[in-house]
């Protein structure tokens, strides 16, 4: 479980996050949604420590991450897996080396054990026999799957996904969504997904947190989101032709 307690973050005069309080539960796919520029990426970066919070704290299973020093944070970070928007695969390494990187860096496993683990996680994301491919040879969907494989190679307790569907066609995006949800339930981990893709929200949103102008505006589940009377959330959710039709059909 991850808790954000009174998080505030400011860049110059711009207050990007204002007193964010929320709980991201274990075994659930917790979504952070909001318009571009609403502060959801900043919130995620605060949660993983890429940005320091100005006030408030982040708790990882009651461990205060915000007050930890660099060495203490390193230990927590080995329990974190993160899927970046563009995959963030290391260009100079092939798929196997990318997935094996955290194992090389933080474990004392033998080469054989590491290779077994790499093959296992690659199989889990349906990418068997692609060990020798370079990132430049992969499609967008494959890059995301390799990034997921790398993120779960260390058996993380916490999985962060920053806009996992960006740049993907709807079908591939659906595959990535389902994969994230399956992994969350299979390994019973705390997953936080940052997205503005309504298909993701409606398919995997166990817990949805809507950020509006830097504030936590609404919380609920994927089912509750369609019934809400919150004006700002409705504008966001039903702002497209597709979701508007969905609302009409439901009503």
């Amino acid at each position, binding site marked *: 479980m991850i808790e954000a307690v009174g998080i505030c973050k400011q860049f110059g005069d711009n207050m990007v996050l204002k007193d964010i309080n929320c709980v991201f539960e274990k075994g659930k796919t917790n979504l952070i949604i909001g318009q571009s520029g609403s502060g959801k990426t900043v919130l995620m970066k605060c949660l*993983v*420590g*890429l940005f320091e919070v100005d006030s408030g704290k982040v708790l990882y299973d009651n461990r205060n991450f915000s007050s930890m020093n660099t060495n203490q*944070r*390193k*230990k927590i*970070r*080995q329990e*974190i897996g*993160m899927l*970046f*928007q*563009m995959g*963030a*695969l*290391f*260009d100079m390494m092939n798929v196997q080396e990318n997935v094996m*990187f*955290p194992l*090389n*860096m*933080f474990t004392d496993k033998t080469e054989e054990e590491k290779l077994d683990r790499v093959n296992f996680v690659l199989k889990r994301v349906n990418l068997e026999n692609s060990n020798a491919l370079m990132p430049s040879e992969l499609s967008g969907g494959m890059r995301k799957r390799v990034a997921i494989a790398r993120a779960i190679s260390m058996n993380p307790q916490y999985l*962060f996904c920053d806009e996992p569907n960006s740049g993907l066609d709807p079908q591939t995006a659906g595959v990535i969504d389902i994969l994230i949800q399956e992994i969350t339930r299979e390994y019973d981990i705390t997953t936080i997904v940052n997205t503005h893709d309504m298909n993701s929200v409606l398919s995997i949103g166990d817990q949805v947190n809507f950020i509006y102008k830097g504030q936590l505006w609404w919380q609920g589940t994927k089912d509750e989101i369609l019934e809400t009377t919150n004006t700002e959330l409705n504008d966001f959710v039903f702002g497209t032709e597709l979701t508007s039709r969905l609302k009409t059909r439901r009503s």
Partner: protein
Amino acid sequence: MYKFVHTVGQYVLLMRRVFTRPQRGKIFWNHLFDEFQHLGLESLGIVAIISTFMGAVVAIQTAFNIDSPLISMSMVGFTTAQSVILEFSPTVISLILAGKVGSRIASEIGTMRVTEQIDALEIMGVNSANYLIFPKVVACLLINPVLIVISIWLGVLGGWIAMEASGLVTTTDYLYGIRIDFDPYIVFYALIKTVFFAYIIATVAGYYGYVTEGGALEVGQASTKAVVYSSILIILFNLILTQILLT
């Protein structure tokens, strides 16, 4: 002024993170050997070409300027060797390396920054500054002196080839000139300068790459800044070190 102080402060803080013990020795050594290849061996061609031609031109110019019968033609060998060892190889070749190696380091690290690869390292708990910059600094500190020694040899050789081909100076005179009043201290001076310049090239380029923000355009700008500022610092430290070591 504020920008200058901010940049220097940011550079010092980054270097504090760079100069720490690598998290995994084996990974560091593998990385270091890769850097020897990328930063050293891949620069050998351009260093060889420039050094040989530079030595040849210095020798021809010197021979052309000696028109007094009172000055021995062996001075061509002397002047070529002194010029190449004292200035041309350590400084000019370091400036060339600032362009080639510096832009490579800045663009490589800058691209990793804008494609979130550095964030990925940080999230994993890797000290990204140490992991990415430290092997490059060590590689430059070790390989640049080797490149400069090769450059000195080729510069002197280039001068000899030019004199032989043109018939302006005999081999005996040229070789005698190289040995006249030869002080090994000038080689030491050249290598000391090279080590300082190697440090400047690797750390300044590493810094500009690491602090890149934005996209492809900013990576290009970081690469340009790395070359410009490391070249300026090389020229500045050339003067300072020459004052300290030769006076």
